[in-house]
């Protein structure tokens, strides 16, 4: 018997640890995925910023190149047209034919119009003070030259060649020289502007490089932090798992030790021949029977938990009349309730609809909740079982509920989120020397969820707790299936 128990005890952790591992690893994976997702998001956002930056730099380069080319082209055109203006004027000197002279004058005027337009365009484009001043000077010098040119042209057309040459030498040549110098100055400014743009571009490129390096560093840092967090999370999970395993082993050992001690003591007394009389022997038999059942119950619970954990426990859902199940549960727990000095207040609403579930699952679930209520029921020693139907707020359907309320020690709000975790034992409960494995509520919750239901809890410290099992109301199709199933089972019985 002892060796059997030992082997069973040894076997339990081996079967549970992998399940716990899976659970914790799944949690770690979830955390890791989240972290990796965050890292990816951060890298993608920063990458987008860098790409935009590079695109801006590229656009600036293209713009600068285009502006330089356009600027130089414009300057070249201006220089050519200015020369053309002067050249055409001088051509007019070479002929005495008035028709040809008029033609040359016309060419000169067309060219000067293009120069004037070009200067106006340049003036519009200027941004800096120096450029504006130069544009103004160029326009003025060009105007001066044109006034001299007009006089020269007029003299040529009048036939006063000597006068025309004199005008040109005294006024035209210096005026045109000033224009030429101005245009060279404009060219120089364009060059300087291009150099400045180039310098800005180089600075922008350097900034981009630094940003890229920074982003790489940040990404590495973030990745390192993520890896560290994942490893840390895994380590914590492993530590927590080990701790839970230790607590579970201690708890189960403790739970087993009491009946084992009783069994040992009873067996020793019987072996030593200390038991005399049939009535005493009968009493010992009852003790042995009770303790062995208690051990068996504990082992069953652990095995059931293991089966719900690996998913091997399947429930066949069918419509059930909860009234009869509640009756049977009341009968089954009547003894333990009475022995514990508790009173069960039963309230079942009439005309409860059929609930969808598994009879054994519902029984197991409710029994666990009743056991819990007894364990933590405190001094008031009253348990209320209430069966009713309620609305489901999420989808405006209805559900069948069975609540089990006690007026015991209650659950601290910080413990509420953990009470359904496997092997979880509140520090307050451990301190109060209330024994348990931490499996009851976890098991009840898993069974409820396996049947498509859920368990909710309302609790207040020193006021009491109410656990409610929520089950789906069976629909029309389920009822037909239930009827046919009932008939087939009936025919089998008959």
């Amino acid at each position, binding site marked *: 018997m002892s060796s059997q128990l030992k082997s069973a005890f040894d076997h339990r952790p081996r079967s549970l640890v992998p399940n716990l591992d899976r659970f914790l690893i799944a949690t770690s994976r979830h955390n890791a995925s989240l972290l990796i997702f965050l890292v990816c998001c951060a890298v993608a956002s920063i990458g987008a910023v860098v790409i935009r930056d590079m695109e801006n730099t590229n656009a600036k380069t293209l713009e600068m190149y285009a502006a330089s080319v356009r600027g130089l082209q414009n300057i070249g055109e201006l220089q050519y047209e200015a020369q053309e203006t002067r050249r055409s004027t001088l051509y007019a000197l070479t002929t005495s034919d008035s028709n040809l002279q008029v033609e040359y004058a016309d060419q000169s*005027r067309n060219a000067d119009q293009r120069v004037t337009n070009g200067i106006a365009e340049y003036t519009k484009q200027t941004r800096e003070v120096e450029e504006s001043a130069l544009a103004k000077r160029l326009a003025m010098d060009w105007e001066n030259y044109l006034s001299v040119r007009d006089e020269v042209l*007029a003299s040529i057309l009048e*036939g006063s060649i000597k006068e025309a040459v004199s005008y040109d030498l005294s006024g035209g040549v210096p005026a045109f020289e000033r224009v030429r110098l101005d245009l060279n100055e404009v060219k120089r400014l364009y060059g300087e502007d291009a150099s400045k743009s180039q310098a800005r571009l180089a600075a922008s490129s350097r900034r981009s490089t630094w940003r890229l390096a920074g982003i790489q560093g940040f990404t590495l840092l973030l990745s390192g932090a993520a890896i560290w967090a994942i490893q840390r999370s895994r380590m914590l999970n492993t530590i927590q798992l080990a701790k839970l395993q230790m607590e579970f082993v201690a708890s189960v050992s403790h739970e087993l030790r009491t009946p084992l001690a009783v069994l040992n003591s009873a067996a020793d007394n019987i072996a030593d021949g200390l038991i005399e009389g049939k009535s005493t022997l009968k009493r010992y038999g009852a003790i042995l029977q009770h303790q062995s059942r208690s051990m068996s119950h504990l082992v069953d619970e652990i095995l059931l938990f293991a089966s719900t954990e690996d998913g091997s426990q399947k429930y066949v859902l069918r419509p059930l009349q909860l009234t009869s199940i509640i009756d049977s549960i009341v009968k089954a727990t009547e003894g333990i309730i009475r022995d514990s000095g508790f009173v069960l207040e039963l309230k079942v609403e009439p005309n409860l609809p059929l609930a969808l579930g598994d009879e054994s699952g519902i029984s197991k679930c409710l029994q666990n909740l009743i056991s819990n209520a007894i364990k933590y029921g405190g001094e008031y020693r009253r348990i209320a079982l209430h069966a009713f139907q309620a609305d489901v707020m999420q989808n405006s359907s209805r559900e069948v509920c069975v609540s089990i309320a006690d007026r015991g020690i209650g659950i601290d709000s910080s413990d509420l989120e953990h009470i359904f975790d496997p092997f979880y034992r509140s520090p307050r409960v451990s301190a109060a020397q209330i024994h348990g494995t931490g499996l009851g509520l976890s098991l009840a919750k898993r069974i409820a969820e396996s049947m498509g239901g859920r368990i909710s809890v309302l609790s207040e410290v020193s006021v009491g707790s109410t656990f409610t099992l929520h089950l789906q109301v069976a629909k029309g199709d389920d009822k037909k299936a239930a009827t046919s199933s009932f008939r087939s089972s009936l025919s089998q019985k008959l």
Partner: protein
Amino acid sequence: MSRRMTVLLIALELALWPQAEAADLFAMIPEPSAVEQNTQADPLAIVVNRSNPVDELSLSELRKVFLGSRSHWPNGRRITIVMRDPGEPERKAILRDVCGMTEDQLKTHFLRGLFTGEILVSPKVLSSPIGVRKFIFNVPGAIGYLRVRDVDDTIKVLRIDGLLPDDKHYQLHIQSQVAME
């Protein structure tokens, strides 16, 4: 002195000879019969540079200008006369209505004036109305003549005896020949 006069006369003859020949050539072109032609009056605008301060001239003043008797405008600018090629209807109208001379008489007049120094510059001859317009546009002291349709806002039209070409009693007209069926 007599030698010098002889040289000048020869030069004058040489200058007049091509015009005389040209006049003979024109005379060789048969004139259309009166039955086939009809005349239509087309006003002739007297145009100057826009900077010219003069807006109006009398017909007699215009005659002085076109014959070179008047050499400068009131603003001191030298007057440059712009003529069309010989034989052009506009030129004929000016010769007839303003100068009151034939082509030969005009040539002789100018040769004599240039020779004696009474006229400073001989008229400029341009072959197209556009040329005339552009010349006047370019030369502040220029004066010429154009059909009204050839005038634009780059030049200024003078009033003659207080009238513009579109006015009723305007005196300068081109006698255009229109073919009749």
